């Protein structure tokens, strides 16, 4: 039955996340934006504690999306510091064996804070993930990894904190194209894996975005996720690549949920300011009688709602074990664009208050933009959506 009412547990999760956002994230958001790369150690410990209590656990479901909206309403950069299996975990979930799930994630919640990163992008390949150049060569009971990964979210934390991990995508056979593409789990501190630099960014500055170098980095043979075989003849055997894409089906709506949170923050800011000025948004009034300002705010609200509902649908489908490749991409494309439009419009509406670093609004505009880029740019998500609605292959629609 169609229903939009969160369960009592979900309502509680929303409330707890909102409180955490208000009390812990909002007050320090500006500081860590200005002090880029400073580690919010105290906050991370608090977040880890909450996570272990399960009040900040972030799965890949509707509840997670509802929580993430609230947390990113608080601060998207600091949200990305929350310890947990993250995108690395999502990759392991998508293509690991049961044994690997236990080995890599079974004890993840114990001990000190840890992170799971996913290293995909390279200097010469971004959206074209099948063109990666990092290699994995088998040497007896080990794989030897060589290559350079950039824009690794949580890269530094995952590569350097005890018991954290980085899932790295590499090719075992360049000539096999996508079929040769596999993912490998590299535990933090593995010799040969090092963080070379941290990016200075437009927004989400509290989040570490790292360049990770693999220089004869050796990992056990059974750290490969999925089937180690390369089946060149059968074109359909591109499980490694498909694993990467299946990960995106799960993570794209999560990124969309982040976008929605930032968009909500900007909308709340604008609406609060208008309220203080005695300006009411008159829902239900004919459009030709509305002010331009009212029309702007209503349009922002509508984009927010559209993005949110598409996101919840994509995650709901996943929880029903329905294929959601199309719906995930739709949600991500819409949410990335929505947050960009909403925050940019909000800065415009608020004028000097919007542009000033005295308020958080300008920061949200910078933070929000990332959601139209990472986990597949808006354009890549449009491309995936287009292929699905046209029933076209990669060759038919490039």
């Amino acid at each position: 039955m169609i229903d939009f009412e969160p369960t009592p547990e979900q309502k509680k999760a929303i409330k707890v996340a909102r409180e955490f956002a208000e009390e812990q994230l909002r007050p320090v958001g500006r500081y860590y934006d200005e002090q880029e790369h400073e580690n919010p150690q105290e906050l991370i410990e608090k977040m880890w504690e909450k996570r272990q209590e399960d009040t900040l656990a972030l799965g890949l479901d509707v509840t997670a999306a509802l929580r993430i909206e609230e947390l990113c309403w608080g601060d998207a950069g600091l949200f990305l510091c929350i310890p947990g299996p993250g995108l690395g975990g999502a990759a392991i979930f998508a293509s690991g064996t049961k044994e690997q799930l236990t080995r890599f994630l079974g004890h993840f919640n114990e001990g000190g804070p840890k992170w799971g990163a996913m290293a995909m992008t390279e200097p010469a390949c971004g959206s074209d993930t099948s063109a990666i150049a990092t290699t994995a060569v088998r040497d007896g009971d080990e794989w030897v990894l060589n290559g350079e990964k950039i824009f690794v979210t949580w890269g530094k934390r995952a590569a350097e904190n005890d018991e954290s991990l980085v899932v790295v995508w590499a090719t075992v056979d360049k000539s096999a194209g996508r079929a040769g593409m596999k993912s490998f789990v590299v535990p933090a501190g593995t010799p040969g894996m090092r963080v070379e630099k941290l990016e200075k960014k437009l927004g989400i500055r509290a989040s570490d975005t790292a360049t990770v170098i693999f220089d004869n980095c050796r990992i056990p043979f059974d750290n490969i996720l999925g089937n180690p075989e390369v089946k060149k003849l059968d074109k359909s055997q591109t499980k490694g690549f498909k694993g990467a894409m299946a990960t995106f089906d799960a993570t794209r709506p999560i990124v969309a949920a982040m976008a929605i949170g930032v968009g909500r923050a900007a909308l709340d800011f604008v609406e609060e300011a208008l309220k203080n000025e005695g300006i009411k948004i008159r829902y239900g009034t004919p459009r030709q009688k509305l002010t331009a300002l009212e029309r702007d705010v209503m349009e922002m609200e509508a984009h927010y709602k559209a993005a949110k509902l598409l996101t919840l649908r994509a995650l709901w489908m996943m929880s029903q074990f329905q294929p959601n490749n199309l719906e995930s991409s739709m949600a991500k494309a819409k949410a990335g664009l929505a947050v960009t439009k909403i925050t940019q419009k909000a800065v415009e509406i608020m004028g000097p208050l919007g542009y000033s670093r005295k308020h958080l609004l300008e920061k949200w505009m910078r933070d929000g933009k990332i959601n139209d880029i990472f986990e597949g740019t808006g354009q890549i998500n449009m491309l995936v959506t287009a292929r699905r609605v046209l029933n076209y292959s990669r060759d038919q629609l490039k």
Partner: protein
Amino acid sequence: MISFSPTEEQQMIASMVKEFASDEMRKIYRECDESGEIPDSIIDTAWKMGLISSNIPEDYGGFGGEHSAITASMIVEELAWGDLSMTIHILCPALFSYPILEMGTETQRKKYLPLVCAEKYTAATAALIEPHFGFDPCSLLTSARPDGNEYVINGEKCYVPLAAEADFLLVYAAENGSSQGFIIEKGTKGLEISEREKNMGIKALPTYELSLKNCRVPKENRLGGPKGCDFNRIMNCSRVALSAMAVGVAKAAFEYSRDYAKERIAFGEPIASRQVIAFMLAEIAIEIDATRLMTWEAAWKLDRKEEATKEASLVKAYSDDMAIMVTDRAVQILGGHGYVREHPVELWLRNARGFPTFDGMAMV
């Protein structure tokens, strides 16, 4: 619990309506648009599905099903996918009967609801829109003034579907500044129905201007009696219905232009294999889905009897824009072929352009 899955019953009804839309409406919609007439036979066939009477309690002659805005949204979407003129025609009696069902007095329900449960289609309608710039449903120029045991109604209305055919009209008028409904029977002195209107779209649907000159109706004909009606809710029901219709029209245009783009060869390959076309279609698909979900959410609020003005008016404005964006692009994708009447997309563009105007012409 948040869920996007229609019930089995909803799926069944939707697929029955879809079949009707596909097998019946889609066969003749162009002819109807050109001639301005809808054959009685198709209206009668639709009537037999009991789309309105199934929501009316058995006491009033209906089948006693639960009246759900979500279910109605699904039905409306499928019908509008078939043809918008016919949809408004088929569902026109609901404009009269749903407000009475929800807000009418017991006497009004007993008297009028059985009419829409009759075996044969019986036209009944509602008059809301007024022929002037700046029309606002919440501040109507048509007025209702109490005078003894009667109301005296004065004003002008337009876009009243089936006004000439209907035996009963629900006319909305301002009474002390608030919009209220008044049941007026055909032949009431002072009620004059003008020539049929000529519109850009929904050409197969007869709509009329009408004027009310010192039109007297008994006091008991005020919708809801002394309590009156919840006009805001009526407007929200209309917004949701029109949004669902916009989704249906847009879906029709999307499917047609998508299929065309896959068949049309230019520079040696289907135009759909170019991103400039493919991305238009992707955006269309996203916006249609988003609008449908927003429609369902607003309908869900209505079903829970919650205040839904924000949701309903947001989705209404969003769907107005979406429908015109989608149908315009459909014409654009077909290029010159989209402009000629051999293809349906120009018809859908004309129909979609009307949504911002159609307040009160549909009801869930």
